[in-house]
């Protein structure tokens, strides 16, 4: 079975540009979460979506937005890129509702470099 997939693998942008990252969850998973991981730190929660509704948002500026589609795939958008947005962006899928404690499974990430 395919795991969580993300595209693109790598991306280079310049300051002020906009970027869209994509994620496809594990088949059957209805929840997608996005995390940002900068070098030397653990992943930091950005968003969680479930059934196309935003379920939670981390401490990130409004330049960050996301959405989930009817097929449960998701996009993360970042506007007005800053140098500090350079990071590994991770997508995780889970299947809430089946168990009270659902496990999040991560994709390989998209490495974003802002110049």
């Amino acid at each position: 079975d395919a795991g969580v997939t993300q595209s693109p693998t790598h991306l280079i942008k310049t300051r002020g540009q906009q970027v869209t990252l994509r994620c496809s969850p594990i088949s059957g998973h209805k929840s997608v979460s996005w995390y940002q991981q900068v070098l030397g730190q653990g992943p930091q929660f950005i968003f969680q979506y479930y059934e196309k509704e935003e379920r939670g948002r981390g401490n990130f500026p409004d330049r960050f937005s996301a959405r989930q589609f009817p097929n449960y795939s998701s996009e993360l958008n970042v506007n007005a890129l800053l140098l500090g947005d350079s990071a590994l962006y991770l997508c995780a899928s889970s299947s809430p509702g089946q168990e009270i404690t659902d496990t999040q499974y991560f994709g390989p990430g998209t490495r974003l470099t802002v110049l």
Partner: protein
Amino acid sequence: DQQVKQNSPSLSVQEGRISILNCDYTNSMFDYFLWYKKYPAEGPTFLISISSIKDKNEDGRFTVFLNKSAKHLSLHIVPSQPGDSAVYFCAGGLYGNKLVFGAGTILRVKS
């Protein structure tokens, strides 16, 4: 405010011996904890989890212990293998959502 802390940036262990990775948390609302392993250029791989109603969970060579009164959890790997060399992250959350991660511990298993 670091809600999850992994105070050891790195750990070096001989092959065949036990590896013990530690994690402390401050948020008493967390009811689910997970350990992930991460290789360079890959996403975190789920290893093992524990619910706050338990104090121990085992899966093969991996055991996680939870001490709620001390707000401390640990991951034991026995026996350690060279392939276990990676960065290990602990994470806590409510119902496993909105996970809060520690900064990670680099484990090196020497053969």
